[in-house]
């Protein structure tokens, strides 16, 4: 029987069934344990980055090559016919005639869904504007699942810029399906948007706001850190919050032994380097998992059975 993701597009995590999500997680961890270089043999993948995103692109392209696939594409839309006014719809019809799947990154919200509607091959969303970035969310889920053994009923603390952080929005939206509980730690001007907390309410998930990062670290199973950008504040305001959302090793002394600190990277000073040596640090492993998450997506979409 074909796996349920075979020949499907991956546009948004929310469209995946629980079964499909579980299959993606299990496949990612299985590929991490037993690497395979045959799953994309003979497949040609287009990597279409209309806006630059070096890490996401390298992570996807590594995944294709590690699975034995081949790549065409571009790293920056500046030189493509999009600049001349070609629609995504036309580009999708042309490029999908060449390849077995398209990975697309684009600055407009909904661009991946447009490409999918006009493409004859599966489209994988590598980020569409401020909307979705499903492979990023999947790598976070893989990492949480790997470190906690389950996604169910976990205590998730999120800290930093919760207003503009697409990563934390998507992750909260994905984890609300598993009955997780949330604690949000941020400057008040960068709080989690209401539409997200409304969704958590609707899903029956408890959430609370805290301004004590150490308390959050002691409460949590997962502490998801993000960066507060200095540019969002004037100097006086920034002085008031400076350091309040930075984590150091001393703050972790009463954390649960199984608690793991995650961060989408790159970090600046929100995680002190002395955290790196603690057993709680897991952000570099998380970045490595990005490749396995993407290998999982590609191999399930392009193989009937694996």
């Amino acid at each position: 029987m074909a796996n349920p993701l075979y020949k499907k597009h991956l546009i948004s995590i929310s469209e995946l069934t629980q079964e499909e999500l579980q299959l993606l997680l299990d496949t990612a961890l299985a590929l991490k344990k037993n690497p395979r270089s045959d799953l994309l043999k003979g497949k040609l993948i287009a990597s279409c980055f209309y806006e630059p995103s070096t890490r996401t692109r390298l992570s996807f392209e590594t995944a294709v090559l590690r699975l034995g696939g081949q790549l065409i594409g571009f790293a920056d839309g500046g030189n493509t016919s999009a600049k001349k006014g070609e629609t995504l719809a036309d580009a999708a019809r042309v490029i999908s005639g060449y390849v077995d799947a398209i990975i697309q990154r684009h600055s407009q919200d909904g661009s991946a869904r447009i490409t999918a509607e006009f493409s004859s091959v599966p489209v994988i969303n590598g980020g569409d504007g401020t909307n979705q970035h499903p492979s990023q969310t999947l790598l976070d889920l893989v990492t949480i699942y790997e470190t906690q053994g389950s996604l169910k009923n976990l205590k998730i603390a999120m800290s930093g810029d919760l207003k503009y952080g697409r990563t934390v929005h998507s992750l909260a939206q994905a984890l609300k399906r598993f009955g997780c509980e949330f604690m949000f730690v941020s400057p008040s001007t960068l709080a989690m948007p209401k539409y997200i907390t409304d969704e958590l309410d609707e899903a029956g998930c408890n959430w609370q706001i805290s301004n004590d990062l150490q308390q959050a670290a002691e409460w949590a199973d997962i502490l998801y850190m993000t960066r507060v950008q200095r540019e969002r504040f004037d100097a006086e305001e920034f002085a008031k919050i400076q350091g309040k959302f930075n984590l150091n090793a001393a703050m972790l002394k009463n954390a649960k032994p199984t608690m793991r600190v995650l961060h989408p990277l790159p970090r600046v000073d929100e995680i002190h380097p002395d955290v790196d040596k603690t057993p709680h640090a897991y952000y570099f492993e998380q970045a490595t998992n990005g490749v396995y998450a993407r290998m999982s997506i590609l191999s399930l979409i392009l193989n009937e059975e694996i």
Partner: protein
Amino acid sequence: MKNTKMSVEAIENGTVIDRIPAGLGLTILRQFKILHHGEAVTVGFNLPSQTRGSKDIIKISGVTFSEHDANRLALFAPEAVVNLIQDYQVAKKMHLTLPVTISEVFRCPNTNCASHFEPVRSRFYVKQQNGETKLKCHFCEKTFDRKSVAEA
């Protein structure tokens, strides 16, 4: 026989959108591009209403609304009633129910939505959230209240 004087001229064949809450008539005319349809459109604003003080009414000659057309009005005026007129008589009276999806009528209010730049029709999912009707764009997945969609 009641001696009522029509404030808006009767039509022979067509569609009458009745019991529009006063003030919403113009919004409906504009949003549903009603002036582009039909042979003649007559409109009444702030007419006396038996049930709610005042109402707006729109009469469109020569056009028969389907149930689907009628239900799209429910986004703005769920209390409106759509009457199909044949030979000056009400042939069918339709009360409105919210559609599950709505296409074409509105532009997505998100200026960064890819639907604005591509050969696609706009498409929204209608959903109820905290007792309010909201529209979620199929493409950019953002959710809007009906007012911001109507003004976009």
